[in-house]
């Protein structure tokens, strides 16, 4: 079933890609093939593979059960929030909270997670910013 859903997505994507390719504006500089041909070929390959997968699907993978699904969503959500807050609160604060949250997700106690997040954040800051001179996101406090 999973393979069939994935195959359908691929076919839909291929159709969208084919349509997207036909509306590419042509330029006045032109080579015999133009900018549309290659995308169309790839859309065709994608569609063909989609059909092949739909007709001969593999066995379903083991999808995570509910508790794990929620945990995965939390992890992805935490990463997105981290990125959104990075320019707002600066690298040190965002990273300490983000890394702490992730390690708490992976089974650290609250105290361990606080220390873990703090050490990861400061460790990266010292190595990459102070020693190697990389530019990290700056917050309102300058770090």
């Amino acid at each position, binding site marked *: 079933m999973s393979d069939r859903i994935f195959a359908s997505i691929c076919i839909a994507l291929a159709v969208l890609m084919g349509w997207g390719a036909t509306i590419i504006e042509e330029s006045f500089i032109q080579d015999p093939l133009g*900018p549309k041909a290659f995308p169309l070929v790839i859309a065709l390959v994608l569609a*063909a593979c*989609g059909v*092949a997968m739909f007709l001969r699907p*593999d066995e379903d993978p083991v999808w995570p059960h509910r508790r794990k699904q929620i945990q995965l969503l939390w992890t992805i959500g935490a990463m997105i929030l981290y990125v959104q807050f990075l320019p707002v609160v600066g690298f040190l604060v965002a990273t300490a909270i983000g890394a702490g949250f992730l390690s708490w997700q*992976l089974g650290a106690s609250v105290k361990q997670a606080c220390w873990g997040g703090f050490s990861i954040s400061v460790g990266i800051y010292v190595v990459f910013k102070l020693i190697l001179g990389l530019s990290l996101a700056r917050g309102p406090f300058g770090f």
Partner: protein
Amino acid sequence: MDTLNALAQGFSVALTWQNLGLALLGCFLGTIIGALPGLGPSNGVAILIPLVFSIGLPATPALILLTSVYYGAMYGGRISSILLNIPGDEPAMMTTLDGFPMAQKGYPGEALAISGIASFVGAFFATWGLVLLAPQLVEVALLFGPAEYFALFTLAFATLGGLSSKNQAKAAVAAAIGLGIALIGVDGQTGVPRFTFDNMHFYDGIDFLVAIVGLFAVSEVLVFVENHGTGQGADGAKTVKLGRITPPWSMLKQTSGAMGRGTLLGFIAGVLPGAGASLGSFIAYSLEKKVSNKDDTFGKGDPRGVAAPEAGNNAAAGGALVPMLALGVPGSGTTAVLLAMLLTLDITPGPLLFTKNPDVVWGLVAALFIGNAMLLAMNIPMVGLFVRLLTIPAKYLMPGVVMISFVGIYGISGSTFDLMVMIGFGVLGWALRKLEVPLVPVILGLLLGAQMEKNLRRAMTISDGEISALVASPLAIGLWCAAIIGFVLPILVGRYLRYKAN
């Protein structure tokens, strides 16, 4: 003779204090990355590329650092395979078959030492193979026109799924996804935007580093979160007593044949398109089992079963560099990541690289020799230190890996948009892995898409739109035939095996 002169030149590049220091650092970091469960050569190097790029190292030192990391990770991978039965990456899988039983029988130190020496032997002779074979291949590559290059790229994609894939449609879908993503951005020939959804961020296209780090590193973390606490995957390990860390002479003598055979087979497997290190270690182990398994000792901790796949795996890693450097077409995941590294440093591999930037090529080869010797010296006496690293709990390690990935990508552009794209690729990578769609063709599509289209359109411009120009030369016809056979053969072989099994 020319080759030897060039190699000597390369050593003069690599043997500066700065470059030696970088090689040492790279070997050390690489071994750590390889030894840590959940990190392997491909995702380790993938995380480091943006960092090295942001720090602003010049091309040759950066190349030396990253290839040392790559070789180091190949060495380090065997530590977790042997002690924990957790291969760091696919090629290390075969090492667990006899390595882990050997450690259980009370010879973990010997197993590590034998595998270290086998790695050295495999990598050392494969580097010589690279020195001798790559210039020959360059001669051939100079005959390639745009049509032949287009056929060659097709060949690379067709064979990539190769013997390891169960479903060729999935390998092809992966390539199409990668090529499709590579299309996003302004068309290089005519300057019109394609698939940009009128979003300014997409005009430059998707940076392949963002995609690679997302696909390899972020998806690895998601897989880890998923498996965490269910008994699969690594949640840290207890300390292991190593015992003696030098192998007895008798064991070296016993395994020397296995190392030789493994090296030769591994190198050949590495040079062939689409095979790479996984096949190298697999063939090396299978043949060794056929040759030496007289007393049915394989799978129960036979040192020859450790030596053969390790030699094969490292020889294949060296062999895979031949097509990557000479043709610009990588055959495996890790060489794809190395290609990404070269492209980031603004070096286009291919026949012209040998004439235009000989210092890069031969500096790299010299760095391989030096790094290899360093790794042997580092790995035999210091293996205990690396083993201790295995006890770092994953609950701290994984968040650290995520954050370092973010730092690297942020360092390239300073844009949070790229970070969001990276998370997107992480989720995509996780889903594809669940569906058993290989990730390497996606990466290769991203890396080669622009080149492939450019060559196709150039060929069409030369022939004034005549499609038959793609199959005009015997060389092109040969490449097309190889591509078709390479794609169809695994399907037939798979059917035959299933038929036989029933």
